[in-house]
């Protein structure tokens, strides 16, 4: 190889590195232009920070604050209207609504994230296998997924919780199962389109195993639709967790989950508007933020999809 050729190939390598990095850089640049999406992302980051700090506080104080301010009832001061001392007022058991909302972040945000990430992992594996092997395997798997999709999502979740009983883990499972088929479908479709590209053929010619091809060659290429779907699905999961808890099938009072905080609101709707207003507003804002970030990510990661 002449020195000139060597320089050229070095440049080629460097260029390809620039190309690889710039996919995400480009996406970030496009995302930054969308002001609504950036604001929503900041809002979500703040929520994550709040959620994490409440957990740290609980660990540091050995649940002292949690027990005395979030759970313990004070029946001498019920339904306190919003005031300087209690910005969002007191609930039907005399507990500060703002603190309960902040402490509830872990359920709504982290639990939905855990459920969706679990669904995404399972769905990705199923979808990748289905799309890569096609044939009978594909047919069987996708018909199974169709059956799950042929049930209304909320009905499936309610049925699973009815069978397993309420509680954190059971709610998580019931939420996750319903989302697996969606992920499987998206990944399968992406795999089918990536599978026919030349670089997969090249990897096969080099003797790469199926596992290596699926995980190292194909999956990085389907990351963009996966991330968008995770964001959108999280919004749905928050709504489902809140809905199940509101029905009394999900996270049980006195835990400060936002939907569970509304369980009694119906009974006290005449006495105190703030018990109903704020937890619901928090659910609305979080879902809104997730949807806007999801839209923004989709536009940023795949400009072709934008209409």
């Amino acid at each position, binding site marked *: 190889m002449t020195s000139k050729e060597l320089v050229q190939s070095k440049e080629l390598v460097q260029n390809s590195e620039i190309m690889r990095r710039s996919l995400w850089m480009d996406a970030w640049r496009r995302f930054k232009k969308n002001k609504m999406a950036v604001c929503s992302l900041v809002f979500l980051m703040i929520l994550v920070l709040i959620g994490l700090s409440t957990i740290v506080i609980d660990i540091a104080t050995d649940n002292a604050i949690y027990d005395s301010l979030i759970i313990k009832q004070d029946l001498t001061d019920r339904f306190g209207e919003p005031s300087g001392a209690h910005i969002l007022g007191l609930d039907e058991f005399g507990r500060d609504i703002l603190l309960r909302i902040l402490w509830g972040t872990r359920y709504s945000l982290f639990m939905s994230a855990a459920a969706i990430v679990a669904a995404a992992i399972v769905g990705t594996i199923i979808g990748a296998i289905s799309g890569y092997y096609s044939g009978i395997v594909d047919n069987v798997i996708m018909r199974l997924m169709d059956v799950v999709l042929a049930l209304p999502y909320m009905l499936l979740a309610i*049925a699973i919780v009815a069978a397993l009983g309420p509680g954190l883990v059971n709610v998580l499972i019931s939420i996750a199962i319903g989302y697996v088929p969606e992920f499987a479908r998206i990944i399968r479709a992406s795999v089918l389109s990536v599978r026919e590209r030349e670089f997969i053929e090249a990897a096969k010619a080099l003797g790469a195993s199926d596992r290596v091809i699926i995980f190292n060659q194909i999956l990085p290429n389907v990351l963009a639709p996966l991330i968008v779907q995770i964001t959108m699905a999280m919004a749905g999961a928050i709504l489902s967790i809140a*809905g199940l808890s509101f029905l009394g099938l999900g996270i049980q009072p006195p835990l400060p989950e936002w939907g569970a905080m509304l369980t009694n609101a119906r009974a006290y*709707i005449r006495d105190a508007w703030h018990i109903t207003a704020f937890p619901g507003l928090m*659910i*609305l804002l979080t879902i809104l933020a997730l949807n806007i970030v999801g839209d923004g990510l989709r536009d940023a990661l795949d400009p072709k999809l934008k209409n």
Partner: protein
Amino acid sequence: MYKYVLKRLLMMIPVLIGVSFLVFFILAVSPGDPARMILGEQATQESVDALRDEMGLDDPVLVRYAHYMGDVLHGDLGTSYKTKLDVLMQVLDRFPNTLILSVAGILVALVIGVPIGILSAKRQYSWVDNLTTVLGLVGVAMPNFWLGLLLVMLFSLHLGWLPSSGMGEGLVPMIKSLILPALTLGTGCAASIMRMTRSSMLEAMRQDYIDTARSKGLKESYITKYHMFKNALIPIITVIGLQFGMLLGGAALTETIFAWPGLGRFMIESIKSKDMPMVLGSAMFLAVMYSVVNLIVDILYAYADPRIKAQYKH
């Protein structure tokens, strides 16, 4: 056309088998001993075992499923553990109320969603469009049980216009009691339908045949109605179908808030009283209805788009 419908009906059979098995598997294989539930805590182990045997609870799940489906096909969904009433009669008693609520909800969604979606597309990037885009985002993100509570607060408690719960007797009281639940159920759908109408209208507006229609000198209102909207209809029907199915399945929340005597609320109550035959019967019924709605949507496609019908000709 009738060949297409027949084909779709046949294609539904495996889906129904799959769905019913899934529901059966989830609910019938749940922890807890039904025989113990029926006989109570005081019953002896022998009598429980005898009943288990009689009910076939120790059979493999496929056998139990086959027995259950055999009974279902003979119109027998079992009897309640608690009330000893026939499940099918109970389900049929409540389902019409859920259907009324869902249809009212989808009507609300259509009346709000489609016109605003069309307007928003015709005036893209105007203030109307921007406003409806924001409202659409909020509508999709709105937890409908929360919206229901807010509506009760405003229209029942503050203004006193509408009842806050129950189903009124007689036509006018019934319609009055239906308004708030229908609004609650329909708002989220309205937002989805609006967004879909807007984007598929925008898609249809870009087509060459619209230019052709304009250069022929057709009236703009005629073009909007017959050239754009008719072609934009397929994705809109899809969303309507999906939403209608979700209303059937998700009506439980709205029915609970408004004490609407529907199947969803009935199912939730049965879950709380651990009345498994009732839960299984209701869930099975709702799941089957959802599949039927999907079938009807598929058949509607063929009406809206002759190309789909043509695929099934041969």
